[in-house]
Structure formats: structure tokens, C-alpha cells
């Protein structure tokens, strides 16, 4: 019995780690790691996604300088945030995480009001992918993956979304705001060290 429980825990942890890896961008060997905690229903997270993260990924993550790791942090006050996070996690298992993030943030106001998360997500998927994502979004393993992210955020004392935590040479910096020009200056300064 103990072996089964231990095995299940290990399997769940491995699934979560794998899931987190699928929601990341760049090389895990990059000198800088940025952990992003965000909520699909939060307007500030939409701004960060559209104005900062895309550019950051293009300029630094794709060049192997920064490793961006996305963490789901749905806030309890947002009625559909948890569902959206589960769908995004599920989409990461069919290789469509980035596209689903883009559509969820682009149409945030619409699905936040009418609650049609499924319709929004599936609008950019093929029928086969949509079927898989629908089933996965309700899978306890995916829900556990999201809850693991929430727990990680709570242990990192995340009290607002979005929050970015930059790690460089074992030192952590909480990034306030999302001004890309200043963030770029900061990253360049770290990299030039």
C-alpha cells in the first residue's frame, strides 16, 4: 500500500514537473530564470502578457539567455480563472499552451463576462485537439498541476498577480511592474556581469 501511495505521489510530481516544463519558453540552462505567476482573468496579467512577455521571449528566451516558466495562479475572486488555468494546462499537453494563452488574454473581457472558456479555447484548436483538451481539462492530474502551481505561489508569498520572480546566480529579485525597457536594461546589466 505504501509503495502504491509513494509511486502515485512520484508520478504526480513528475507529471507536474513535466507540465511546468511544457509551459516554459527558452532553455532551462539559461543564466536567468523568470517565474511568472499570472491569472487569465486579471487585466494586469493581460497587459503583462501582451506588452512584455512576448517581447521578452523573442529577445531573450529564444536566444537562450532567459528561461521563462509560467505558473498558473488563478485568484479566488475571479469566477472563471481556475477553469481557464485548467484549459491552458490541458492545452500544454497537446503543444498549444502559447496559442491558448494568447486567445484567453485577447478575449479576456468576453469569456470573463459570459463564462465561455471552453468555446474561447477550442476556437483555436483542431476538432481532435479540442476533444483531447476538453477531456484533459477535467482530469484530476491537470487540476492537481494547477493546484501545485498555486501552492508554489503561496510558498513564494505571491500576494498579487502578475508577479515575476527573476533568479540569477541563486539570487532572487521580485520584478515590480512590467515596463519592458527598464526590465531589458536590468537583464542586460545582469548578463554583462
Amino acid at each position, binding site marked *: 500500500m505504501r509503495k502504491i501511495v509513494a509511486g502515485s505521489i512520484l508520478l504526480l510530481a513528475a507529471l507536474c514537473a513535466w507540465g511546468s516544463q511544457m509551459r516554459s519558453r527558452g532553455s532551462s540552462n539559461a543564466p536567468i530564470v523568470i517565474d511568472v505567476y499570472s491569472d487569465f482573468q*486579471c487585466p*494586469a496579467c493581460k497587459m503583462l502578457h501582451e506588452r512584455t512577455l512576448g517581447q521578452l521571449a523573442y529577445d531573450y528566451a529564444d536566444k537562450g539567455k532567459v528561461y521563462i516558466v509560467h505558473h498558473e495562479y488563478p485568484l479566488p475572486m475571479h469566477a472563471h480563472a481556475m477553469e481557464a488555468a485548467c484549459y491552458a494546462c490541458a492545452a500544454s499537453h497537446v503543444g498549444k499552451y502559447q496559442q491558448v494563452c494568447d486567445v484567453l488574454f485577447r478575449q479576456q473581457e468576453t469569456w470573463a463576462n459570459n463564462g465561455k472558456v471552453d468555446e474561447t479555447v477550442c476556437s483555436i484548436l483542431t476538432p481532435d485537439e479540442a476533444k483531447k483538451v476538453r477531456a484533459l481539462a477535467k482530469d484530476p492530474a491537470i487540476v492537481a498541476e494547477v493546484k501545485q502551481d498555486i501552492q508554489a505561489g503561496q510558498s513564494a*508569498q505571491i*500576494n*498579487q*498577480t502578475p508577479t515575476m520572480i527573476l533568479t540569477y546566480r541563486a539570487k532572487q*529579485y*521580485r*520584478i*515590480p*511592474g*512590467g*515596463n519592458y*525597457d*527598464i*526590465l531589458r*536594461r*536590468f537583464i542586460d*546589466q545582469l548578463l554583462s556581469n
Partner: protein
Amino acid sequence: MRYVLIVLRVALGIVLLYAAYTKLRQPWLLFAMSIDAYQILPEWAALTLGRTLPWMELALGALLATGFGLRYSAAAATALLGVFFGVMAWSFAKGMKIDCACFGFGEAIGPATLTRDAILLSLSITLTILTFRKVGQALPPANSGV
């Protein structure tokens, strides 16, 4: 009255010194980012303030704690805290979910941070009034000896 004045200036001095310390131990660009997040100033101004404001707080805190130029330092602290409170209240009223950056990072603007700033501001106003009153009392009347 003398002791009230000492307690007030030392307490405010320590608060400002601590605020400066929490900012100076972090890279200045991060503080500039948190100023920029208020969306009030242009980027160049946020960068300039990010570099200079912690040093201003440090100087002001040291002046208050030691009591040098008390009238001016108390008035300057009141002006500074007044600006901080105004900006924070404005951002909170607008529903902005941003970092306060008062004492380091990771503290969102909310009722608790606003109350704390309001208390500090009222203490600073009291100190300024007391220092001006004290100077006014210490001066001889304008027509004395006539």
C-alpha cells in the same frame, strides 16, 4: 513638549532610514520599475527618481534622527510623505494593483499601506507644526525693546 519633538523626529528619521535601506539593498532599476508602474511619470523621470529617491530618503532620515536643520527636514519629510500618500491614494482609487515599493517589494497598495502612510504623514505634519511653533516661541517679539 521637548520630548514629544525628540520622539517624533527620531521615529520618523528611523522610518525614512529603513525605507532607504530596503530600496538601496536592491538594484535601483527595480525601484525605477515600481515607480514606472504608477503610470504617472515618463520613463526618464522614473529612472532618475529610482536612482536618487532612496538617497534623498537616507539624507532626510539622517537629518531628522540627528536634529540638524529640523525645521527644513521636517517640512521636506511632510512634503515627501504627502506626495507618497497622494500618489498611493490616487492609484488605489483607480483600482491599480501595483506594488507599493514603500519598504522593499512584494507589498501591494491597499487599505493597510494607505493607513500606515496616513499615520506617518500626520506624525510628520505634527512635527513640522511643533518645530515652527517652537522657533516662533524662541524668537523675541518683533517690537521688543522699543
